[in-house]
Protein backbone atom coordinates (compact mmCIF):
# COMPACT_ATOMS: atom_id res chain seq x y z
CA UNK A 1 0.00 0.00 0.00
CA UNK A 2 1.12 3.53 -0.69
CA UNK A 3 2.05 5.46 2.40
CA UNK A 4 0.46 8.92 2.32
CA UNK A 5 1.43 9.85 5.88
CA UNK A 6 4.43 11.98 4.88
CA UNK A 7 2.67 13.66 2.04
CA UNK A 8 1.75 17.29 2.48
CA UNK A 9 -1.88 18.10 2.08
CA UNK A 10 -2.60 19.45 -1.38
CA UNK A 11 -4.45 22.74 -1.36
CA UNK A 12 -6.22 23.19 -4.68
CA UNK A 13 -5.72 26.61 -6.24
CA UNK A 14 -8.61 26.00 -8.61
CA UNK A 15 -11.13 25.46 -5.83
CA UNK A 16 -9.85 28.10 -3.40
CA UNK A 17 -11.28 31.59 -3.02
CA UNK A 18 -9.29 34.81 -3.35
CA UNK A 19 -8.35 35.16 0.33
CA UNK A 20 -7.45 31.51 0.81
CA UNK A 21 -5.08 31.68 -2.17
CA UNK A 22 -3.29 34.69 -0.69
CA UNK A 23 -3.09 33.14 2.78
CA UNK A 24 -1.39 30.00 1.50
CA UNK A 25 0.70 31.56 -1.22
CA UNK A 26 2.44 34.10 1.03
CA UNK A 27 4.53 33.49 4.14
CA UNK A 28 2.26 32.57 7.05
CA UNK A 29 0.52 35.51 8.75
CA UNK A 30 2.41 38.02 6.57
CA UNK A 31 -0.56 39.45 4.66
CA UNK A 32 -2.09 42.79 5.54
CA UNK A 33 -5.02 43.89 3.44
CA UNK A 34 -5.42 47.37 1.96
CA UNK A 35 -8.92 48.80 1.65
CA UNK A 36 -10.48 45.62 3.02
CA UNK A 37 -14.17 44.82 3.39
CA UNK A 38 -14.53 46.89 6.55
CA UNK A 39 -13.90 50.02 4.48
CA UNK A 40 -16.98 49.10 2.47
CA UNK A 41 -16.02 50.48 -0.90
CA UNK A 42 -18.78 48.92 -2.97
CA UNK A 43 -19.88 49.48 -6.54
CA UNK A 44 -22.29 52.40 -6.87
CA UNK A 45 -23.34 51.07 -10.27
CA UNK A 46 -24.46 47.65 -9.01
CA UNK A 47 -26.35 49.37 -6.23
CA UNK A 48 -28.19 51.48 -8.81
CA UNK A 49 -29.23 48.25 -10.56
CA UNK A 50 -30.51 46.79 -7.32
CA UNK A 51 -27.90 44.01 -7.48
CA UNK A 52 -25.94 42.57 -4.56
CA UNK A 53 -22.62 44.26 -3.81
CA UNK A 54 -19.42 42.93 -2.25
CA UNK A 55 -17.65 44.97 0.42
CA UNK A 56 -14.33 44.39 -1.39
CA UNK A 57 -15.89 44.70 -4.88
CA UNK A 58 -14.51 41.28 -5.76
CA UNK A 59 -10.80 41.89 -5.30
CA UNK A 60 -8.45 41.52 -2.33
CA UNK A 61 -5.28 43.64 -2.34
CA UNK A 62 -2.48 44.20 0.14
CA UNK A 63 1.10 43.67 1.27
CA UNK A 64 2.86 40.55 2.35
CA UNK A 65 6.04 38.54 2.20
CA UNK A 66 6.98 35.64 0.03
CA UNK A 67 10.03 33.71 1.09
CA UNK A 68 10.92 36.73 3.19
CA UNK A 69 10.69 39.19 0.29
CA UNK A 70 8.21 42.07 0.41
CA UNK A 71 5.52 41.83 -2.25
CA UNK A 72 2.29 43.56 -3.18
CA UNK A 73 -0.50 41.21 -4.10
CA UNK A 74 -3.96 41.32 -5.67
CA UNK A 75 -6.41 38.43 -5.87
CA UNK A 76 -9.62 38.51 -7.89
CA UNK A 77 -12.64 36.73 -6.43
CA UNK A 78 -14.27 34.60 -9.09
CA UNK A 79 -17.16 33.94 -6.73
CA UNK A 80 -18.29 37.54 -7.09
CA UNK A 81 -19.53 38.20 -10.63
CA UNK A 82 -16.80 35.99 -12.09
CA UNK A 83 -14.09 38.39 -11.00
CA UNK A 84 -15.33 40.98 -13.46
CA UNK A 85 -13.77 44.44 -13.36
CA UNK A 86 -15.86 47.42 -12.33
CA UNK A 87 -14.91 50.96 -11.30
CA UNK A 88 -13.89 50.23 -7.70
CA UNK A 89 -12.40 46.79 -8.42
CA UNK A 90 -10.26 48.27 -11.19
CA UNK A 91 -9.22 51.32 -9.16
CA UNK A 92 -7.98 49.08 -6.34
CA UNK A 93 -5.76 47.20 -8.78
CA UNK A 94 -4.54 50.38 -10.51
CA UNK A 95 -3.82 51.95 -7.11
CA UNK A 96 -1.83 48.88 -6.07
CA UNK A 97 0.31 49.06 -9.21
CA UNK A 98 0.88 52.78 -8.55
CA UNK A 99 1.83 51.97 -4.97
CA UNK A 100 4.41 49.54 -6.37
CA UNK A 101 6.16 52.42 -8.14
CA UNK A 102 6.45 54.24 -4.78
CA UNK A 103 7.39 51.22 -2.61
CA UNK A 104 9.44 49.17 -5.08
CA UNK A 105 8.52 45.74 -3.66
CA UNK A 106 10.34 42.63 -4.91
CA UNK A 107 7.31 41.99 -7.13
CA UNK A 108 3.62 42.55 -7.63
CA UNK A 109 1.71 39.27 -7.72
CA UNK A 110 -1.57 39.27 -9.63
CA UNK A 111 -3.85 36.30 -8.91
CA UNK A 112 -6.03 36.72 -11.97
CA UNK A 113 -9.51 35.27 -12.20
CA UNK A 114 -11.83 37.35 -14.34
CA UNK A 115 -14.17 37.38 -17.29
CA UNK A 116 -12.98 40.92 -18.03
CA UNK A 117 -15.19 44.00 -18.04
CA UNK A 118 -18.17 43.88 -15.66
CA UNK A 119 -21.01 44.46 -18.09
CA UNK A 120 -23.26 46.05 -15.47
CA UNK A 121 -20.86 48.98 -15.46
CA UNK A 122 -19.32 48.30 -18.83
CA UNK A 123 -17.97 51.72 -19.74
CA UNK A 124 -16.39 52.30 -16.34
CA UNK A 125 -14.97 48.75 -16.46
CA UNK A 126 -13.40 49.17 -19.90
CA UNK A 127 -11.70 52.42 -18.92
CA UNK A 128 -10.61 50.80 -15.65
CA UNK A 129 -8.89 47.94 -17.49
CA UNK A 130 -7.10 50.43 -19.71
CA UNK A 131 -5.91 52.22 -16.56
CA UNK A 132 -4.71 48.90 -15.10
CA UNK A 133 -2.71 48.18 -18.27
CA UNK A 134 -1.05 51.59 -18.19
CA UNK A 135 -0.26 51.41 -14.47
CA UNK A 136 1.12 47.87 -14.88
CA UNK A 137 3.50 48.94 -17.64
CA UNK A 138 4.61 51.99 -15.64
CA UNK A 139 5.40 49.67 -12.70
CA UNK A 140 7.40 47.40 -14.98
CA UNK A 141 9.28 50.34 -16.38
CA UNK A 142 10.07 51.41 -12.81
CA UNK A 143 11.81 48.05 -12.41
CA UNK A 144 9.12 46.22 -10.43
CA UNK A 145 8.40 42.78 -11.89
CA UNK A 146 4.73 41.84 -12.20
CA UNK A 147 3.96 38.13 -12.01
CA UNK A 148 0.55 36.74 -12.97
CA UNK A 149 -0.99 33.55 -11.59
CA UNK A 150 -3.89 31.90 -13.40
CA UNK A 151 -5.81 28.83 -12.32
CA UNK A 152 -9.30 29.63 -11.08
CA UNK A 153 -12.73 28.41 -12.11
CA UNK A 154 -13.50 31.42 -14.31
CA UNK A 155 -10.13 31.59 -16.10
CA UNK A 156 -8.67 34.89 -17.30
CA UNK A 157 -10.48 36.49 -20.23
CA UNK A 158 -11.51 39.74 -21.83
CA UNK A 159 -9.37 42.74 -21.10
CA UNK A 160 -7.78 40.86 -18.21
CA UNK A 161 -6.37 38.42 -20.77
CA UNK A 162 -4.48 41.39 -22.23
CA UNK A 163 -3.44 42.51 -18.73
CA UNK A 164 -2.07 39.02 -18.10
CA UNK A 165 0.16 39.15 -21.16
CA UNK A 166 1.51 42.52 -20.08
CA UNK A 167 3.03 40.83 -17.00
CA UNK A 168 6.73 39.87 -16.91
CA UNK A 169 5.87 36.26 -16.34
CA UNK A 170 2.83 33.97 -16.02
CA UNK A 171 2.26 30.81 -13.99
CA UNK A 172 -0.73 28.58 -14.77
CA UNK A 173 -2.15 25.23 -13.73
CA UNK A 174 -3.66 22.70 -16.10
CA UNK A 175 -7.17 23.86 -15.16
CA UNK A 176 -6.30 27.49 -15.87
CA UNK A 177 -7.63 29.10 -19.02
CA UNK A 178 -6.28 32.22 -20.68
CA UNK A 179 -7.69 34.00 -23.69
CA UNK A 180 -9.45 37.09 -24.96
CA UNK A 181 -13.02 36.26 -25.93
CA UNK A 182 -14.51 33.67 -23.62
CA UNK A 183 -15.93 30.55 -25.33
CA UNK A 184 -19.49 31.56 -24.39
CA UNK A 185 -19.04 34.97 -25.98
CA UNK A 186 -17.74 33.41 -29.21
CA UNK A 187 -20.55 30.87 -29.29
CA UNK A 188 -23.25 33.48 -28.55
CA UNK A 189 -21.95 35.85 -31.22
CA UNK A 190 -20.58 33.59 -33.95
CA UNK A 191 -22.64 30.45 -33.48
CA UNK A 192 -21.99 27.00 -32.10
CA UNK A 193 -20.28 25.93 -35.37
CA UNK A 194 -17.43 28.34 -34.59
CA UNK A 195 -16.96 27.12 -31.03
CA UNK A 196 -19.06 24.83 -28.87
CA UNK A 197 -18.62 26.34 -25.41
CA UNK A 198 -20.16 23.27 -23.76
CA UNK A 199 -17.44 20.99 -25.18
CA UNK A 200 -15.10 21.09 -22.20
CA UNK A 201 -12.33 19.09 -23.85
CA UNK A 202 -12.33 21.44 -26.84
CA UNK A 203 -12.33 24.55 -24.62
CA UNK A 204 -9.46 23.21 -22.48
CA UNK A 205 -7.26 22.29 -25.40
CA UNK A 206 -7.90 25.67 -27.04
CA UNK A 207 -7.37 28.03 -24.11
CA UNK A 208 -6.16 25.72 -21.31
CA UNK A 209 -2.90 25.74 -19.39
CA UNK A 210 -1.12 23.03 -21.37
CA UNK A 211 -1.75 24.66 -24.74
CA UNK A 212 -0.76 28.08 -23.41
CA UNK A 213 2.46 26.60 -22.04
CA UNK A 214 3.32 24.88 -25.32
CA UNK A 215 2.70 28.11 -27.26
CA UNK A 216 5.01 30.05 -24.93
CA UNK A 217 2.16 32.27 -23.71
CA UNK A 218 2.94 31.29 -20.10
CA UNK A 219 6.32 30.51 -18.59
CA UNK A 220 5.38 27.89 -15.99
CA UNK A 221 2.82 25.09 -15.83
CA UNK A 222 2.27 23.69 -12.34
CA UNK A 223 0.10 21.15 -10.52
CA UNK A 224 -3.14 22.43 -9.05
CA UNK A 225 -1.61 23.04 -5.64
CA UNK A 226 -1.10 26.47 -4.05
CA UNK A 227 2.28 25.26 -2.73
CA UNK A 228 3.37 24.57 -6.32
CA UNK A 229 2.35 28.07 -7.37
CA UNK A 230 4.33 29.43 -4.42
CA UNK A 231 7.42 27.48 -5.42
CA UNK A 232 7.11 28.66 -9.01
CA UNK A 233 6.84 32.30 -7.87
CA UNK A 234 9.97 31.89 -5.73
CA UNK A 235 11.87 30.47 -8.70
CA UNK A 236 10.57 33.23 -10.99
CA UNK A 237 11.69 35.89 -8.50
CA UNK A 238 15.20 34.45 -8.54
CA UNK A 239 15.51 35.13 -12.26
CA UNK A 240 16.81 38.32 -13.85
CA UNK A 241 14.03 40.73 -14.73
CA UNK A 242 13.81 41.43 -18.44
CA UNK A 243 13.23 45.13 -19.14
CA UNK A 244 10.53 46.18 -21.55
CA UNK A 245 12.84 47.59 -24.21
CA UNK A 246 13.09 47.68 -27.98
CA UNK A 247 15.21 44.56 -28.09
CA UNK A 248 12.74 42.53 -26.01
CA UNK A 249 9.77 43.70 -28.06
CA UNK A 250 11.49 42.98 -31.36
CA UNK A 251 12.21 39.50 -30.06
CA UNK A 252 8.58 39.04 -29.02
CA UNK A 253 7.50 40.34 -32.42
CA UNK A 254 9.53 37.65 -34.19
CA UNK A 255 8.13 34.94 -31.93
CA UNK A 256 4.53 36.02 -32.63
CA UNK A 257 5.21 36.30 -36.38
CA UNK A 258 6.74 32.85 -36.40
CA UNK A 259 3.78 31.40 -34.49
CA UNK A 260 1.34 32.91 -36.95
CA UNK A 261 3.24 31.61 -39.95
CA UNK A 262 3.73 28.15 -38.42
CA UNK A 263 0.28 27.53 -36.97
CA UNK A 264 -1.94 30.12 -38.64
CA UNK A 265 -3.75 27.51 -40.71
CA UNK A 266 -4.34 25.05 -37.86
CA UNK A 267 -7.95 24.47 -36.94
CA UNK A 268 -7.34 22.67 -33.66
CA UNK A 269 -4.64 22.67 -31.02
CA UNK A 270 -3.93 18.98 -31.72
CA UNK A 271 -2.63 20.02 -35.17
CA UNK A 272 -0.32 22.56 -33.51
CA UNK A 273 0.91 19.98 -31.00
CA UNK A 274 1.72 17.56 -33.80
CA UNK A 275 3.69 20.24 -35.62
CA UNK A 276 5.54 21.06 -32.39
CA UNK A 277 6.66 17.44 -32.38
CA UNK A 278 4.21 15.31 -30.41
CA UNK A 279 3.53 12.15 -32.40
CA UNK A 280 0.41 11.38 -30.41
CA UNK A 281 -1.11 14.81 -29.64
CA UNK A 282 -4.47 13.47 -28.52
CA UNK A 283 -2.69 11.84 -25.58
CA UNK A 284 -1.46 15.20 -24.21
CA UNK A 285 -4.64 16.22 -22.37
CA UNK A 286 -4.50 12.90 -20.52
CA UNK A 287 -0.96 13.30 -19.18
CA UNK A 288 -0.41 14.48 -15.63
CA UNK A 289 1.62 17.67 -15.32
CA UNK A 290 4.88 15.86 -14.48
CA UNK A 291 4.73 13.54 -17.48
CA UNK A 292 3.56 16.37 -19.69
CA UNK A 293 6.47 18.61 -18.70
CA UNK A 294 8.83 15.69 -19.18
CA UNK A 295 7.50 15.09 -22.70
CA UNK A 296 7.58 18.82 -23.50
CA UNK A 297 11.11 19.14 -22.10
CA UNK A 298 12.51 16.97 -24.85
CA UNK A 299 11.17 19.34 -27.52
CA UNK A 300 12.44 22.64 -28.78
CA UNK A 301 9.64 24.94 -27.62
CA UNK A 302 9.14 28.47 -28.78
CA UNK A 303 11.03 30.85 -26.52
CA UNK A 304 9.00 33.72 -25.13
Amino acid at each position, binding site marked *: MTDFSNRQRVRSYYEANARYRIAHLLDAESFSE*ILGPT*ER*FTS*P*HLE*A*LGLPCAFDDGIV*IGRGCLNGLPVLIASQEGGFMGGAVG*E*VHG*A*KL*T*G*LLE*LAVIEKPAAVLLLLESGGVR*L*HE*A*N*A*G*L*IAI*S*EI*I*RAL*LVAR*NAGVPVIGLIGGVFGCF*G*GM*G*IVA*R*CCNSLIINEEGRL*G*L*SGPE*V*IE*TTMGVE*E*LDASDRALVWR*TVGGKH*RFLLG*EVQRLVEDDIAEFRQAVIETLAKTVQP*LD*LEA*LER*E*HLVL*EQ*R*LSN*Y*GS*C*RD*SSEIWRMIGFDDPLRLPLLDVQSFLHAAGSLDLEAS
Partner: protein
Amino acid sequence: MKTKDLLDQLFPDGHSIETTADGLLSGYAQTAKGAIAVMGTTGHLALGVEAALSLAQFVLNVVKQSPGCPILMLVDTQGQRLSKRDELLGINGYLAHLVKCLELARIRGHQLLTLVYAEAVSGGFLAFGLMADEIHTLAEAKVRVMNLPAMARITKLPLEKLEELSAASPSFAPGVANFYQLGGLRSIWSPPLAAELLKALDRPPAGDCRREDGLTRQGRTLAGRVAQLVREA
Protein backbone atom coordinates in the same frame (compact mmCIF):
# COMPACT_ATOMS: atom_id res chain seq x y z
CA MET B 1 -16.98 60.13 -42.04
CA LYS B 2 -15.12 58.52 -44.94
CA THR B 3 -11.48 57.83 -44.24
CA LYS B 4 -10.29 59.89 -47.19
CA ASP B 5 -12.32 62.93 -46.09
CA LEU B 6 -11.04 62.52 -42.56
CA LEU B 7 -7.41 62.46 -43.71
CA ASP B 8 -7.95 65.48 -45.96
CA GLN B 9 -9.49 67.45 -43.12
CA LEU B 10 -6.85 66.44 -40.59
CA PHE B 11 -3.86 67.01 -42.85
CA PRO B 12 -4.39 69.93 -45.25
CA ASP B 13 -0.58 70.15 -45.59
CA GLY B 14 -0.51 66.66 -47.10
CA HIS B 15 0.17 63.09 -46.09
CA SER B 16 1.45 59.77 -47.37
CA ILE B 17 -0.94 57.52 -45.47
CA GLU B 18 -1.86 54.29 -47.16
CA THR B 19 -4.96 52.27 -46.52
CA THR B 20 -4.94 48.54 -47.14
CA ALA B 21 -7.67 46.18 -48.25
CA ASP B 22 -7.57 44.45 -44.88
CA GLY B 23 -8.65 47.57 -43.01
CA LEU B 24 -5.40 49.13 -41.84
CA LEU B 25 -3.98 52.57 -42.42
CA SER B 26 -0.46 53.79 -41.76
CA GLY B 27 2.02 56.41 -42.89
CA TYR B 28 3.18 59.92 -42.15
CA ALA B 29 1.53 63.32 -42.38
CA GLN B 30 2.77 66.90 -42.44
CA THR B 31 1.46 69.39 -39.92
CA ALA B 32 2.41 72.92 -38.89
CA LYS B 33 4.08 71.25 -35.89
CA GLY B 34 6.16 68.94 -38.06
CA ALA B 35 5.75 65.39 -39.28
CA ILE B 36 3.60 62.91 -37.36
CA ALA B 37 3.15 59.16 -37.73
CA VAL B 38 -0.40 57.95 -38.31
CA MET B 39 -1.80 54.45 -37.83
CA GLY B 40 -5.24 53.01 -37.46
CA THR B 41 -8.12 50.93 -38.69
CA THR B 42 -10.95 51.41 -41.18
CA GLY B 43 -14.24 49.77 -42.07
CA HIS B 44 -15.10 48.87 -38.43
CA LEU B 45 -12.23 46.38 -38.49
CA ALA B 46 -12.50 43.37 -36.19
CA LEU B 47 -8.97 43.35 -34.78
CA GLY B 48 -7.34 39.95 -35.19
CA VAL B 49 -3.81 38.62 -34.81
CA GLU B 50 -2.56 39.77 -38.25
CA ALA B 51 -3.77 43.35 -37.84
CA ALA B 52 -2.34 43.56 -34.33
CA LEU B 53 1.06 42.42 -35.62
CA SER B 54 0.99 44.91 -38.53
CA LEU B 55 0.17 47.82 -36.22
CA ALA B 56 2.86 46.71 -33.76
CA GLN B 57 5.38 46.52 -36.62
CA PHE B 58 4.50 50.07 -37.61
CA VAL B 59 5.04 51.31 -34.04
CA LEU B 60 8.41 49.55 -33.82
CA ASN B 61 9.43 51.09 -37.15
CA VAL B 62 8.46 54.58 -35.97
CA VAL B 63 10.42 54.09 -32.75
CA LYS B 64 13.50 53.01 -34.72
CA GLN B 65 13.30 55.36 -37.70
CA SER B 66 11.62 58.51 -36.36
CA PRO B 67 12.72 59.09 -32.76
CA GLY B 68 10.31 61.29 -30.82
CA CYS B 69 7.81 61.58 -33.68
CA PRO B 70 4.22 61.92 -32.36
CA ILE B 71 1.89 59.04 -33.20
CA LEU B 72 -1.78 59.61 -34.02
CA MET B 73 -4.09 56.59 -33.82
CA LEU B 74 -7.26 56.72 -35.91
CA VAL B 75 -9.78 54.29 -34.47
CA ASP B 76 -12.57 52.47 -36.26
CA THR B 77 -12.97 49.01 -34.78
CA GLN B 78 -15.93 46.82 -33.89
CA GLY B 79 -13.73 45.12 -31.26
CA GLN B 80 -11.48 42.10 -31.27
CA ARG B 81 -12.06 39.39 -33.87
CA LEU B 82 -14.19 36.65 -32.34
CA SER B 83 -12.88 33.36 -33.63
CA LYS B 84 -11.61 30.04 -32.44
CA ARG B 85 -8.49 30.44 -34.57
CA ASP B 86 -7.52 33.75 -32.97
CA GLU B 87 -7.99 32.26 -29.51
CA LEU B 88 -5.99 29.18 -30.49
CA LEU B 89 -3.06 31.41 -31.49
CA GLY B 90 -3.32 33.46 -28.28
CA ILE B 91 -4.82 36.69 -29.60
CA ASN B 92 -4.60 38.29 -26.15
CA GLY B 93 -0.82 37.96 -26.43
CA TYR B 94 -0.87 39.68 -29.83
CA LEU B 95 -2.98 42.56 -28.54
CA ALA B 96 -0.78 42.84 -25.44
CA HIS B 97 2.25 43.00 -27.75
CA LEU B 98 0.73 45.99 -29.55
CA VAL B 99 -0.03 47.61 -26.20
CA LYS B 100 3.58 47.08 -25.05
CA CYS B 101 5.00 48.51 -28.30
CA LEU B 102 2.91 51.66 -27.75
CA GLU B 103 4.15 51.91 -24.16
CA LEU B 104 7.71 51.61 -25.45
CA ALA B 105 7.03 54.51 -27.81
CA ARG B 106 5.70 56.58 -24.91
CA ILE B 107 8.72 55.75 -22.76
CA ARG B 108 10.98 56.87 -25.59
CA GLY B 109 9.28 60.24 -25.83
CA HIS B 110 6.69 59.75 -28.57
CA GLN B 111 3.50 61.66 -27.88
CA LEU B 112 0.50 59.33 -28.36
CA LEU B 113 -2.84 60.73 -29.54
CA THR B 114 -6.05 58.97 -30.48
CA LEU B 115 -8.99 60.12 -32.55
CA VAL B 116 -12.05 57.86 -32.59
CA TYR B 117 -13.64 58.75 -35.93
CA ALA B 118 -16.17 55.92 -36.39
CA GLU B 119 -16.49 52.98 -33.97
CA ALA B 120 -14.54 52.06 -30.85
CA VAL B 121 -15.48 48.82 -29.12
CA SER B 122 -14.00 46.86 -26.19
CA GLY B 123 -10.91 44.73 -27.00
CA GLY B 124 -10.10 46.43 -30.30
CA PHE B 125 -10.16 49.80 -28.54
CA LEU B 126 -8.13 48.56 -25.54
CA ALA B 127 -5.36 47.26 -27.77
CA PHE B 128 -4.35 50.61 -29.22
CA GLY B 129 -6.66 53.65 -29.06
CA LEU B 130 -7.05 53.54 -25.28
CA MET B 131 -3.25 53.59 -24.87
CA ALA B 132 -2.93 57.24 -25.94
CA ASP B 133 -1.92 60.14 -23.71
CA GLU B 134 -5.06 61.88 -24.92
CA ILE B 135 -8.10 60.21 -26.49
CA HIS B 136 -10.36 62.39 -28.60
CA THR B 137 -13.42 61.64 -30.65
CA LEU B 138 -15.73 63.01 -33.29
CA ALA B 139 -19.26 63.75 -32.07
CA GLU B 140 -20.77 61.24 -34.52
CA ALA B 141 -18.50 58.36 -33.43
CA LYS B 142 -19.85 55.30 -31.64
CA VAL B 143 -18.13 54.11 -28.48
CA ARG B 144 -19.31 51.04 -26.60
CA VAL B 145 -18.46 47.77 -24.90
CA MET B 146 -21.55 45.91 -26.00
CA ASN B 147 -24.97 46.92 -27.28
CA LEU B 148 -27.88 46.89 -24.86
CA PRO B 149 -29.71 43.80 -26.23
CA ALA B 150 -26.55 41.66 -25.95
CA MET B 151 -25.88 43.10 -22.53
CA ALA B 152 -29.42 42.20 -21.44
CA ARG B 153 -28.85 38.62 -22.64
CA ILE B 154 -25.58 38.15 -20.79
CA THR B 155 -26.42 40.00 -17.58
CA LYS B 156 -29.93 38.46 -17.55
CA LEU B 157 -31.41 41.88 -16.80
CA PRO B 158 -34.52 42.96 -18.73
CA LEU B 159 -33.81 45.25 -21.68
CA GLU B 160 -36.43 47.75 -20.48
CA LYS B 161 -34.63 48.02 -17.16
CA LEU B 162 -31.28 48.65 -18.90
CA GLU B 163 -32.83 51.27 -21.21
CA GLU B 164 -34.40 53.00 -18.26
CA LEU B 165 -31.15 53.04 -16.28
CA SER B 166 -28.99 53.98 -19.25
CA ALA B 167 -30.84 57.28 -19.36
CA ALA B 168 -29.73 57.96 -15.80
CA SER B 169 -26.26 56.36 -15.61
CA PRO B 170 -23.37 56.89 -18.02
CA SER B 171 -21.58 53.78 -16.82
CA PHE B 172 -23.29 51.19 -19.01
CA ALA B 173 -25.09 52.94 -21.85
CA PRO B 174 -23.09 53.14 -25.10
CA GLY B 175 -22.24 56.53 -26.51
CA VAL B 176 -19.67 59.29 -26.80
CA ALA B 177 -21.35 61.51 -24.19
CA ASN B 178 -21.26 58.73 -21.60
CA PHE B 179 -17.60 57.85 -22.19
CA TYR B 180 -16.80 61.54 -22.04
CA GLN B 181 -18.56 61.92 -18.70
CA LEU B 182 -16.60 58.96 -17.29
CA GLY B 183 -13.31 60.57 -18.30
CA GLY B 184 -12.62 58.01 -21.04
CA LEU B 185 -12.44 60.76 -23.68
CA ARG B 186 -10.45 63.98 -23.32
CA SER B 187 -12.51 66.03 -25.73
CA ILE B 188 -14.92 65.92 -28.63
CA TRP B 189 -13.42 67.45 -31.76
CA SER B 190 -15.33 69.68 -34.12
CA PRO B 191 -14.19 71.14 -37.46
CA PRO B 192 -11.72 72.37 -38.45
CA LEU B 193 -10.06 69.10 -37.36
CA ALA B 194 -6.57 70.23 -38.38
CA ALA B 195 -6.77 72.99 -35.76
CA GLU B 196 -7.90 70.53 -33.07
CA LEU B 197 -4.97 68.28 -33.92
CA LEU B 198 -2.47 71.16 -33.64
CA LYS B 199 -3.89 72.13 -30.24
CA ALA B 200 -3.51 68.54 -29.02
CA LEU B 201 0.06 68.33 -30.36
CA ASP B 202 0.86 71.51 -28.41
CA ARG B 203 -0.11 70.03 -25.03
CA PRO B 204 2.67 68.03 -23.35
CA PRO B 205 1.55 64.55 -22.19
CA ALA B 206 0.41 64.72 -18.56
CA GLY B 207 0.10 61.06 -17.59
CA ASP B 208 -3.15 59.14 -17.23
CA CYS B 209 -5.69 61.72 -16.02
CA ARG B 210 -8.87 59.87 -16.91
CA ARG B 211 -9.88 59.39 -13.27
CA GLU B 212 -9.58 63.13 -12.61
CA ASP B 213 -11.65 63.90 -15.71
CA GLY B 214 -14.25 61.33 -14.60
CA LEU B 215 -14.51 63.02 -11.21
CA THR B 216 -14.69 66.57 -12.61
CA ARG B 217 -17.48 65.47 -14.91
CA GLN B 218 -19.21 63.49 -12.13
CA GLY B 219 -19.33 60.28 -14.16
CA ARG B 220 -16.75 58.23 -12.26
CA THR B 221 -16.52 59.61 -8.77
CA LEU B 222 -14.83 56.74 -6.89
CA ALA B 223 -11.96 55.57 -9.10
CA GLY B 224 -9.57 58.42 -8.30
CA ARG B 225 -10.29 58.39 -4.58
CA VAL B 226 -9.96 54.61 -4.24
CA ALA B 227 -6.62 54.52 -6.08
CA GLN B 228 -5.34 57.42 -3.98
CA LEU B 229 -6.31 55.67 -0.73
CA VAL B 230 -4.42 52.58 -1.92
CA ARG B 231 -1.33 54.62 -2.81
CA GLU B 232 -1.39 56.20 0.62
CA ALA B 233 -2.06 52.99 2.56
